[in-house]
C-alpha cells in the first residue's frame, strides 16, 4: 500500500515536470497552428503511457538501483577498501583504484544500455536511415563510449589532472574524425553525446565522482568532483564515429575483395584465351 502512495507521489512529480512541456505544446497547437491535433486520442494515451512509464521507472530506480549504486560507489572509494585496512603514510598510487575504474566502466556501460532517451534516439535513427543504422549496434557503441569516458574520468580524479586537457584532446579527436567519417553519421554522433546522460546515469555517476573527490587526499570536490558527466558526453561521439568508420571500412574491404576476384577472373579468362590462340 505504501508503494502505491509512493507511486502516486512520483507520478505527481513527473506530471509537474512535464507540465511546462505540455502547456507549450498545447499553447502553440491551439493558438498558433490552430488546428486540431491529428489522432488526438492516440497521442493522449501515448502521453499518459509515457508519464506512467517514467514514474514507474523513477520509483524503481529510487527503490533499487540508486541506493545500491551510491553505496557501492562509496564503498569502492572508501580508504578501508582501497588499502584493505593497512595504515597508509605514502602518497596514493593510481593503480590502487583499479576496481574503481572497472566499476566506473561497467556501470557506465550498463546504465547507458537502459537509458530511455538513448533508446528513443536509436529507434528514430533506425527508422530514418531505413535500417542502415541498427539501433542495438548504435546503443552498444554509445555505451562503450560512456564506459571509456567514465573510467578515464575517474582516473583523472584520482591523479588530479586538470579536466580541460582531456576534454580539449577529446575535441581534437572529434574534429579529426569528423573529416574522415561518413557524412551521414556526423549529426547523429554529435547528438549521442547529449542523450547518454539523463535519468539513470547522472545520479550514479555524480555520486561516484563526489565520492572519489572527497575521499582522496588533496582533491577538492569543488574542482575535481564534477566533470565525469562531461567525459560521458564526449566519448560517445568518438565511439559512434569510430563505429561508422569501422562499418565503412569493412564494407569497403568486402567491395575490394569482390573487385579483386572479378579482376582475377577476367585476367584468367584472358590468359586462357591467349593460350588458345597460337
Amino acid at each position, binding site marked *: 500500500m505504501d508503494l502505491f502512495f509512493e507511486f502516486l507521489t512520483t507520478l505527481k512529480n513527473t506530471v509537474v515536470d512535464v507540465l511546462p512541456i505540455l502547456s507549450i505544446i498545447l499553447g502553440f497547437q491551439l493558438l498558433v497552428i490552430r488546428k486540431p491535433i491529428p489522432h488526438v486520442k492516440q*497521442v493522449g494515451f501515448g502521453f499518459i503511457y509515457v508519464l506512467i512509464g517514467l514514474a514507474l521507472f523513477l520509483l524503481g530506480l529510487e527503490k533499487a538501483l540508486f541506493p545500491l549504486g551510491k553505496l557501492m560507489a562509496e564503498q569502492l572509494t572508501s580508504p578501508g577498501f582501497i588499502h584493505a585496512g593497512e595504515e597508509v603514510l605514502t602518497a596514493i598510487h593510481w593503480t590502487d583504484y583499479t576496481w574503481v575504474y572497472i566499476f566506473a566502466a561497467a556501470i557506465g556501460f550498463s546504465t547507458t544500455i537502459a537509458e530511455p532517451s538513448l533508446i528513443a534516439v536509436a529507434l528514430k535513427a533506425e527508422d530514418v536511415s531505413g535500417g542502415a543504422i541498427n539501433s542495438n549496434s548504435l546503443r552498444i557503441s554509445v555505451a562503450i563510449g560512456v564506459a571509456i569516458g567514465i573510467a578515464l574520468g575517474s582516473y583523472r580524479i584520482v591523479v588530479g589532472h586538470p579536466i580541460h586537457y582531456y576534454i580539449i584532446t577529446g575535441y581534437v579527436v572529434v574534429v579529426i574524425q569528423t573529416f574522415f567519417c561518413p557524412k551521414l553519421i556526423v549529426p547523429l554522433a*554529435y547528438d549521442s553525446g547529449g542523450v547518454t546522460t539523463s535519468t539513470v546515469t547522472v545520479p550514479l555517476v555524480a555520486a561516484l565522482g563526489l565520492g572519489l573527490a572527497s575521499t582522496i587526499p588533496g582533491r577538492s570536490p569543488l574542482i575535481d568532483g564534477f566533470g565525469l558527466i562531461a567525459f560521458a558526453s564526449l566519448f560517445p561521439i568518438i565511439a559512434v564515429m569510430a563505429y561508422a568508420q569501422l562499418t565503412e571500412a569493412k564494407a569497403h574491404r568486402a567491395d575490394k575483395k569482390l573487385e579483386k576476384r572479378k579482376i582475377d577472373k577476367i585476367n584468367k579468362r584472358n590468359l586462357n584465351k591467349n593460350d588458345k590462340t597460337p
Partner: protein
Amino acid sequence: MHNQFFVFLKALLGSCKDLLPIILVIAFFQFAVLQQPMPNIGDILIGLALVVLGLTFFIYGLEMGLFPIGESMAQAFAKKGSISWLLTFSFCLGFGTTVAEPSLIAVAKEAAIVAASGGIISDTIESQLSYANGLRFTVAFAVGFAIVVGVLRILRGWPIQYLILGGYVVVVLMTMIAPSWIIGIAYDSGGVTTSTITVPLVTALGVGLASAIKGRNPMIDGFGLIAFASLTPMVFVMIYGMVIS
C-alpha cells in the same frame, strides 16, 4: 486484443534485456568484489520489476504519443511558413523543458553547496539559492538559444560540423579565461540538460522539419539539435561564472 497483448509482452522482454547488464554489474561487484550480502533484497526485486514495467510503458507511449506530436507540429509549422513563430516555439521548448529538469535542479543545488563550502559565495541559504537559480536560468536560456540555432540550421541547411567545431573553439577559449572552479560544473551542465521527455520531442521535431522541407535529408539535417543543446550551456555557464566572480 490478443495481438496487442503479445506486442506488450515482447516489449516487456526487451526491457528485461536492457536491464540485464545493470543487474549483472551490481551483483558481480556486491558479491565478488565487495563481498557483502545484498541489503533488502525484497525492495530491490520490487524496484527492478518497476523499472522494467516503466521502461516498457515509456517506449510504448513514445511511439504512440511523443514522436507523432513532435512530427506533426514540425510539419504544421513548415506548412504555415512562419519562421518567427517556429523560432519562438523552439526557444520556449528548449527553455521550458530545461528550467524544470529535475537532474539540473539536483546538480545546481549540489554545485551551490560545494561553492559555498569552497568560499566562492557566502555560506547563507539565500546566496546558495540565488546561485543555484542563476545557474538553472543560465542553462535554460542556453538550451533555448541552442534549439533556435539548431532549427535555423535545419531551415537554411548549414552543415553541422562548422557550427559545432566553432562552438568547441569558443569553449576552449572560454576555458582559458573562466575561473577554474566553474569549469567542471560548466562542462557537466552540457550533459544534464537533455531529459528523457525532451530528447524524443526534440528529435521528432528536427526529423519532422527536415522531412517537411524540400532538399533536406532527415538523416543529415534532422539530427543535431541535441548536440547544440549540450554545447551552448558550457559557454553560457562559464560566462555566468565570470560574471559572478
